[in-house]
């Protein structure tokens, strides 16, 4: 159902037939499309840019000044660590054929990318490009989680947590949806990662926020974002980079990519306006943080839908997502009383769920081949719901266990003194001097 899966299966078939291994056969050369490859090379760069510097800035601007470097360092270090782990095992777990266990994971047959010969083609692009494109997804998803426990986690424990989480949670769920696993087979629609990336990261964030507990002084001290200029730059680069995320998920420079880009732009804009208007009406002022949070909410919500809905569907989806995520990051958070510092769950979790469900509502046969509720296919909403639940349950349990184990072995939080003095100096020995 998803373009990525389709592609993978196609490549798998080719591989099975031995064609891909046959060296520079003519048949393969014919397969590579330079236009599609050009777009996927570009998309990979765009998605990398979403994490560094995009997300690093988005989050870095929202913490207190004493933690800005440490917060940005998390995104940067995650980029490095996930790259290596994806190469070693992640890609294999997510996108290989897992044999009898293929419904659940892809196994380790492609560990260290042993199958990725230079001339291996995946669909119409080099396998090296598909691998790297997917790698950037395996980078940003853990990085999104860091927003939930900002300003209080040990750097060492954070690295261990993220490494395990990517291999144990992210890579398998990716396999379920895009790698030939059971959710893809069930017909769950997730064009670019609403479930795989955003619900997943959001739920992991929520669990982390609970397990780590609140920041010292939460609710009493002034924890206002220290410099929203950074966050605006970050949100802007997220928006721009998201074209690679969504339109890149077409794995081609075709009409599907084009429509994905158009609806991404429309839904994002609608969500930014929607959050702005709701906040303006309820609180009297349209905050800048609200405006950019709304945009991110729209980007999150349109992610699963981007290959399936039309512009009008995207407009409505965006309007809904902006308003619901406003509630997620303000009402819901205060109701439940956890300290999800930068709203990883409030924006990515809530936005991801809204988007996944609305994909089932607004999907159009003429766009992505599958009709949704508005075209009479109510069942699709139910399928989407199953995908959401499977992801939430597995992610929540696994994340909880990983965190608890790490906590027992090496602890999760910095000391009280470190938290008060700030992580920039206490963890990294550096400060911003101005």
């Amino acid at each position, binding site marked *: 159902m998803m373009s990525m899966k389709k592609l993978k299966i196609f490549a798998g078939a080719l591989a099975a037939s031995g064609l891909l291994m046959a060296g520079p056969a003519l048949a393969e050369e014919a397969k590579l499309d330079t236009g599609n490859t050009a777009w996927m090379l570009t998309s990979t760069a765009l998605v990398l840019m979403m994490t560094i510097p995009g997300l690093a800035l988005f989050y870095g601007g929202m913490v207190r000044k004493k933690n800005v470097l440490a917060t940005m360092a998390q995104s940067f270090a995650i980029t490095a660590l996930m790259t290596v782990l994806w190469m070693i095992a992640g890609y294999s777990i997510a996108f290989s054929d897992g044999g009898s266990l293929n419904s659940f994971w892809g196994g380790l047959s492609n560990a260290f990318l042993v199958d990725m010969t230079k001339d291996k083609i995946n669909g119409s692009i080099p396998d090296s490009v598909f691998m790297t494109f997917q790698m950037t997804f395996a980078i940003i998803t853990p990085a999104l989680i860091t927003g939930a426990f900002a300003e209080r986690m040990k750097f060492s424990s954070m690295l261990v947590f993220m490494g395990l989480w990517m291999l144990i949670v992210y890579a398998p769920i990716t396999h379920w949806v895009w790698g030939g696993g059971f959710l893809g087979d069930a017909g769950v629609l997730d064009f670019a990662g609403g479930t795989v990336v955003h619900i997943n990261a959001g739920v992991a964030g929520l669990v982390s926020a609970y397990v780590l507990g609140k920041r010292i002084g939460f609710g009493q001290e002034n*924890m206002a974002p220290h410099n929203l200029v950074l966050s605006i730059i970050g949100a802007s680069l997220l928006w721009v980079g998201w074209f690679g995320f969504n339109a890149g998920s077409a794995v081609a420079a075709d009409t599907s990519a084009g429509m994905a880009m158009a609806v991404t732009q429309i839904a994002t804009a609608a969500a930014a306006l929607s959050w702005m208007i709701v906040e303006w009406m309820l609180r009297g002022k349209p905050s800048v943080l609200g405006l950019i949070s709304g945009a991110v909410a729209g980007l999150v919500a349109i992610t699963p839908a981007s290959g399936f809905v039309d512009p009008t569907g995207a407009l409505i989806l965006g309007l809904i997502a902006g308003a619901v995520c406003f509630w997620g990051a303000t009402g819901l958070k205060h109701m439940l009383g956890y300290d999800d510092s930068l709203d990883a769950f409030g924006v990515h979790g809530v936005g991801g769920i809204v988007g996944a469900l609305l994909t089932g509502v607004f999907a159009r046969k003429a766009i992505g081949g599958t009709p949704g509720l508005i075209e009479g296919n109510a069942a699709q909403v139910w399928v989407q719901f199953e995908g959401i639940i499977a992801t939430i349950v597995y992610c929540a349990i696994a994340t909880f266990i990983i965190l608890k184990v790490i906590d027992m072995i090496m602890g999760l939080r910095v000391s009280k003194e470190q938290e008060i003095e700030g992580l920039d100096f206490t963890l990294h020995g550096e400060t911003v001097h101005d």
Partner: protein
Amino acid sequence: MKYIIAVIKPHRLEHVREALASLGIEGMTVSEVKGHGRQKGHTEVYRGAEYVVNFLPKVKIEIATTEDMLDKALEAIQEAAKTGQIGDGKIFVLPIEKTIRVRTGETDRDAL
């Protein structure tokens, strides 16, 4: 000699400097400070979390001056800093026991 400490609204600094200059008082040291008083702070809301910013931006001017210039200086500052609205600030006068110019070692009146 006297040490004048004046806490004023930031956008009046230039007026005050000019007013003092017209009295021949050029020497002063200025810093950005935050003030609290009758004029209370404001509330900023970030994603539903309210943070009360109790302190407002002010400018602190420090001027060492001789007794004979003191009253004129105080008057000039007051006039130039006044907007008539709450939060206009305060002036404090403290005694100075000694003044030295670093460059020359001159002291007191000569040091200004």
